[in-house]
């Protein structure tokens, strides 16, 4: 792996975080390949797959498209009005790489501010991305939460 690749992947993750924090979700959706998956495994069995355990999120592109539409609608009460969010993405590691696919891990802390309260979501990403003409696209965007229980968060109403 070259330093250039590492920097390019890092920049991709930072740009993605900026899109999410500024709620530019239509542009964010363009970062996904049409067969991509966005998922969050269960809190207590994150090592298990989506046929063996109840994930919190397992969106194909139809569902993810709907999720984004719902953010833009009026009746997603949990995010209307929208939260403020801020994401820190770090500790990037490129785990494997070939011409079609890069497997990476990175740590995250996502802060959500609403109703005078701050909720923090901590965990790591296990992404699979594909190099494309001007950057990368997600094949699988997986956010693994370290939280044992969503207390006080209560919900995961934003993209993690």
């Amino acid at each position, binding site marked *: 792996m070259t330093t250039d690749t590492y920097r390019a992947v890092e920049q991709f993750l930072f740009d993605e975080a900026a899109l999410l924090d500024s709620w530019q979700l239509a542009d964010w959706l363009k970062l996904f390949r049409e067969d991509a998956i966005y998922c969050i495994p269960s809190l207590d069995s994150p090592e298990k797959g989506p046929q063996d355990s109840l994930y919190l999120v397992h969106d194909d592109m139809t569902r993810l498209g709907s999720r984004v539409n719902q953010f833009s609608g009026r009746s997603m009460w949990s995010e209307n009005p929208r939260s403020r969010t801020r994401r820190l993405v770090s500790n990037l590691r490129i785990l494997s790489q070939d011409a079609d696919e890069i497997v990476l891990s990175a740590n995250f802390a996502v802060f959500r501010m609403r*109703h005078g309260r701050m909720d923090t979501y901590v965990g790591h990403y296990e992404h699979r991305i594909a190099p494309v003409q001007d950057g990368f696209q997600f094949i699988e965007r997986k956010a693994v939460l370290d939280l044992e229980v969503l207390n*006080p968060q209560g919900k995961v109403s934003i993209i993690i």
Partner: protein
Amino acid sequence: MELHMNEVDAPVVIDDLANATFKVNRQAFTDPAIWELERQRVFDQCWLYVGHESELTEAGSFLTRKVGGRPVIFVRDGEGEVRVFFDSCPHRGNSVCRGSRGQADRFTCFYHGWAFNTKGELAVVPDPVGYGPGLDRSKLGLGRPPRLEHYRGLYFLSMKPDIVDLRTYLGGAIPYIDSMLDIAVADPVIAAGEQAYNIKANWKLLLENSADIYHGHFTHMRFFTEFLTDVGADLDAWRKIARGDDQNRVETFDYGHAVIDTPIGPLPLFSDKPEVFAKLNKALVEKFGADRAAQLLGRSQNLLIFPNTVMISSWRTIRTFYPVAPDDLECRAWAIVGAEDSPELREARFGNFISFLGPAGFGTPDDVEALENCQRGFAAAGVPYNDLSKGMGRPGGAVANDELQMRAVWRRWAELMDPDFEPGIEKSAAMLAAAE
């Protein structure tokens, strides 16, 4: 009648059949004194859900849970019997179970090394020199709740030694529990992946919310008009249910349980992978017959098992919750699946579940938002009462779109909080029809 508590001046529950009015004082959601009394007078007087036998796969399998606010070990002993112990060393109190799940032939307290077998018997006391004859090992096993019983593998405990047996307690709810569990040719099992979240709201708000059709159209507008539209579902069936056009039944039972029972509109389970659903339908017809299969897949029930367990058939879930403060509840929820589901069916069931339920579903987060906003709203205090009268004035009796199911749980709650409280006797349209 009215429920008055010493702690507050105004009545807590106003149950006025003559004027078709049912009101609950918001202090019932906010007052720490009421919350403390609930532990003794409600939770310690009822059967409380612990877990399902399928979660303990073999001898020595254990899980730790909190039930009624008490830390317990849910374990299958060396001979295969399911047991529940308090997770507290009889010596000095430390927890004896490390980790929230696993396999063990012994639970050892790391404080002084006392160890217990999976039957809860005291097996080891290190350095026993110095104890007199008072050290009776037979009385120093792990503590256990006075009662532990199960229905079809659903284990409940009770802190009330002379409570009626579990089957009597569940009573009229049992056919609906069967509907939740009859979902596959093989036995129902709890899937891996527990959903664990707190809601900063009073626990009774979640009980009310868990069988509330009235809120569906507004609170869950995005699930219906956005998500289901985006996946191409036909909304007409859902509109009919929301309007109460069809047979939206509600029933209440002894001991405070209630169920709403309605037709079901299209869900992802039916439409995402039609061939997978067709196979499931065929298997259920073969096992249960065409009528029963049509009921299992064509109707939806939300069942409230008083005080704190909910089962919902649209997503085949069981959830339980407990107040850690007047304005904070901890909730645990699980998916019920078939033991021998194909990977495709299992994925379809999970996809159906999380399309609505759970912390990141297209339904639950808006319930959490609503409940927390209610709790915030109670701080206004200028509005002392919640109103739960819908359906009391409906000629012919309440239907599922009304609030009878909430009144049922409140009536039981008030009766337990004050034995002098006489709950109003109200029969739904379905109950009146059945009595004819």
